[in-house]
């Protein structure tokens, strides 16, 4: 049951990432991902199920790619 809840939160991030259009939205999703990762680590400790590990890696990769697709912010302000 717990693993399903965690998987759902990660899938939500995955889906919302497709609709993400700005750096601000991306930042919110990144924060969600950090929070989900933290909760998973707190819950499972060192023994994170492989399914969740794969999902975390996949979502992270997609977040990074999305960040690369979004227009870069000003480099120097």
């Amino acid at each position: 049951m717990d693993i399903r809840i965690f998987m759902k939160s990660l899938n939500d991030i995955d889906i919302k990432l497709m609709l993400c259009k700005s750096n601000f939205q991306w930042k919110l999703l990144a924060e969600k991902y950090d929070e989900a990762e933290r909760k998973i680590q707190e819950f499972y400790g060192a023994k994170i199920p492989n399914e969740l590990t794969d999902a975390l890696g996949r979502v992270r990769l997609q977040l990074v790619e999305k960040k690369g697709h979004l227009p870069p912010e000003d480099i120097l302000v």
Partner: protein
Amino acid sequence: MGILKAISEAVKEKAKEEIIRYLKKVADENGSRPPHPRDRQSERPDRHAEPRREERPYPPKERQDRTERNDRPERNNDRYDRQDRQDQPRSDRRPDQFERPPQRDRLDHADRNDRQPERNDHRPPRTDRNDRYDAPPQEHRSWDRDREREKERQQQHHQPPVQRPAPQPEPRPDIRPPAPVEQKKAEPPITPPPAPAPQPVIAKPQPVKEEWIAPLIEEPIEKIQVTVITQDIVIPHEFARTLQPLPLNEYTLYIKLLLYSFSIHKNYGYLGAGLKKSVGLDELAQEEFSRLLDRICKRGLAIVEKISEYQSTYTLYLPFDPETMKKVDEKKKDEPEAEPEKAPRAKEKEPAKPAPQKQPDKQTGRPRGGKKEEPKKGKEAGRDEKKAKEPEKKQPPKGRGRPAAKERPAPVEEPVEEMIPGRTAIHLDDDGLMKAYRTFVSMEIDKAKMRVGRSNFDKIYMEAVKYIDKKHGFKVLSDQERFREYLTQYYISAFDIPDFEAWKKAKG
């Protein structure tokens, strides 16, 4: 027998002569008549006087043969007999004889029963002699007479009867045309004016687009860096009143930019999504934001300068209150005097250059860090000493040529200024150099962007993001300041931009 024969021949010859004479007479009479039967009708008014017509109860003039018959008295008498015969009981009549529908031309209604003979010539002659149905109603007879009189007048005054046109087409044009003709005549002079009218209408939108906005402030706007002495942000009363008539959107944007300027201690910066987000207008459409900023510029409250194809900067009008604000450069210069200056902003940047000394601690010369630290300076004197030591530790990474380190707050300069006034000049020099170096790096990145093309630059950006994620961790991507720092560093490496040390040496 011979006598009888001779008498009979003489009688025959005489009869022949009489017949011939009679025929000649008839021929002469026929020769004097008009050639076409149509003309006979036109002659009728001449041959028959009006009183005679009144005697006749049923003037049958719709058919030519009938007209001729009417001329003969015996025929008329005969007709009257027939009329009398119709007085007999209805049951004695043959239904087909008297109730046969009258033959009418489709244009007869326009004649008001004054049928034209030539129109009906193609019809077979009527076999029934019942004229009662063909006779016009009693109330139309006077009208017919009037028409005939008119015809007579026309014949007398104008033309021979042969050329007289059928009266049927005449009334139509007489009845209808007057009004439309007048309208048509009246219209042409009216229509020409509308034609040129649309042209000015098309020309009008252009001036409308170039909306002129009265400037509220005509003072020149210059880039300054300020610190607020007190914790409150003060807007001069006069300036607040000047801002009052601004529309809500513009007023909001200006106030937000003003507050943001106070928070970053300078009235200028780059335009972009970062600025929009920083002032709390992230959800505002970029077009609307640009439009509002443009209007603010027209009002003299800001300046937007395009420094490259993709980048532009803004400079906001900042009401300077000498009692509550201090300009950074001035303050640094004048701190030994301990008096706030009210000198114009233009002078602020110039004094930074002549600073003679250089401090080994280059990172501390950042303008942003300096500004932020100033307000704290008075309150947290104890902390400043600790902060003064920090930049020395951070020096090694800077030596690697990481321009991103500029953005980090460097609190050192303020405490040092207080303790050792001579050091201020050193920081100012470094500050100016760092500012120049940042501009240089920004320009180099812009050049590289144009050189490699937009798509390739996007790919490089993508690679940079992956590299930063891999090397510095995912959380760095969410931290805007650190991400910018690492990204700039990546670009410096990727585009072979000289680091600060190399650039400084090259500059001499």
